[in-house]
């Protein structure tokens, strides 16, 4: 064989390198997939044990309001009603998203449309700094500032959904803001130019063209914020009061799925009903974050700029 043909048939150095790179990245992704699947399997096997091994009725789990897994009620059924926690979790999540959204959109418009220079140099770093603050710090500030504030204004103990909402509002604001900023920046320049050329004012351009075009991105940001709020444990646990009671108002102590999990898991014995019931709550959390993810994908698909 002549040397040229030989060289052509042999794998080149570059091809080998590429093959190696492929293998390494394949290994990395399969590791992540295995970890995710393992977590799902573990949480599901523990969480479903409540219903299959301990024979708790799923509907009772979702609709009853008494959470006291160690105690059986008059009919001999364990009291594992998760409704107060479900209501608490959705309550703080939705309320904080509702409050945070106008602020986030307003701030993002200011940063991209009104004062892009100031936004880039000052506001962007500040927002990024806020993202990096650990949740325990937010919780601590909530405990020492927000809770006494609410107690003095509204009475009661100060612990409750309102305090949780305030803390989560500050926590998700930077997430929603920075994602909204990205969405607004992604709106093509010629959209704005066309609007202005047609005689639209800046306000008309922003409200009717830029915001409209960026809507899917903004919605994605809001859902991301909600997912973060839903999964936040420590900061909420510190200010919500952790009472497994159906909240009657915004300043009565309540609890969330995460707060019951973090405070209860250390005091239960693995394999017991008390422990399994907590895993069921964890499973519920996992399914909810899955739902948030699907929602984000759906929004992104629906709202693609064509």
């Amino acid at each position, binding site marked *: 064989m002549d040397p040229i043909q030989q060289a052509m048939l042999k794998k080149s150095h570059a091809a080998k390198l590429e093959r190696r790179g492929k293998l390494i990245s394949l290994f990395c992704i399969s590791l992540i997939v295995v970890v995710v699947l393992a977590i799902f399997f573990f949480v599901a096997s523990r969480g479903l044990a409540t219903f299959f091994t301990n024979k708790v009725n799923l509907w009772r789990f979702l609709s009853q309001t008494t959470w006291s897994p160690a105690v059986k009620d008059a009919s001999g059924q364990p009291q594992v009603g998760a409704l107060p926690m479900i209501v608490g979790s959705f309550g703080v999540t939705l309320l904080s998203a509702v409050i945070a959204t106008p602020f986030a959109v307003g701030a993002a418009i200011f940063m991209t449309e009104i004062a892009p220079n100031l936004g880039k140099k000052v506001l962007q770093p500040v927002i990024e700094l806020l993202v990096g603050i650990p949740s325990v710090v937010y919780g601590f500030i909530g405990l020492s500032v927000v809770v006494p504030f609410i107690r003095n204004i509204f009475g009661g103990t100060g612990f409750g959904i309102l305090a949780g909402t305030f803390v989560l509002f500050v926590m998700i604001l930077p997430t929603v803001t920075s994602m909204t900023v990205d969405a607004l920046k992604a709106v093509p320049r010629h959209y704005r130019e066309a609007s202005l050329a047609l005689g639209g004012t800046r306000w008309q351009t922003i409200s009717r063209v830029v915001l409209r075009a960026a809507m899917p991105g903004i919605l994605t940001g809001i859902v991301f914020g909600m997912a973060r709020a839903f999964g936040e444990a420590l900061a909420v646990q510190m200010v919500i009061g952790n009472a497994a009671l159906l909240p009657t108002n915004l300043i009565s102590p309540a609890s969330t799925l995460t707060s019951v999990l973090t405070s209860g898991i250390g005091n239960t014995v*693995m394999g017991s009903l008390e422990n399994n019931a907590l895993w069921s709550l964890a499973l519920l959390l996992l399914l909810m974050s899955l739902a948030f993810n699907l929602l984000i994908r759906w929004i992104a698909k629906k709202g693609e700029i064509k």
Partner: protein
Amino acid sequence: MKKLLGFLALCGLLVLTACGSGAGRGESITAVGSSALQPLVEAAAEQYQSENTGVFINVQGGGSGTGLSQIQEGAVQIGNSDLFAEQQAHIDASKLQDHRVAVVGITPIANRNVGVKDLTVVQLRRLFTGEITNWKQVGGNDLPVVVINRTQGSGTRATFERWVLGDRQAKPAQEQDSSGMVRSIVASTPGAVSYVAFSYVDKTVRSLSLAGVQPTDANVTTNAWPIWSYEHMYTKGKATGLTKRFLTYMLSDEVQGELVKAMGYIPISKMTVTRDADGNVQAN
């Protein structure tokens, strides 16, 4: 890229060897469980390690339930618990060996402005079951009662409920997962009432006496103050090796005489009564 990969591999190798040599040098045991007992075991372990080189005693919290389940599974050498293993469901107490290292007294505490210093056991029970909703019903100021509980399954809560509530159920209320948090919330919330170990009581809250009996160490040793529990260190079967030596050290005069007192616990040797898992009290 190649250099980076090589560097990462080297780092991994270093970490692995560091771990290996750490475990290979000397003996090490792990004690897990009760957060009420944790400070004492940590302090004792630190002293013991400074006196005996080459041993390592790893102390972790996690709660009494964790301590008992981990020792039952044999995952650790010592399981710390505020409760008798017999009291905890799903634990086979016959396989565990009990080592009582200290006694902890638990006292009800209230916010300083409730206007009450003394309650009967029945009044206290009614506060926590929700039958009394205002402090003026027990002779205090006109303030709504705000009950703060520890998390379900906490050793402190189990002890308090056993000796105050009996077989009654506490009404659902706020729950906190540490005594420190309970104290700061009771201190700052008007009308709040809760319970903590003696060592957590300070000037910011008011501890309540029960029918004239003050919550003091002396009253606990005679069982005149009934709300107390042993601090247990459980081993699976007989303790051996370092575990045995450390448990002996926990019961030595060095720990019992100074450390136990200094950290707010009551030495086991001071008790003039013995109480078993079913709550029967016998004079020593």
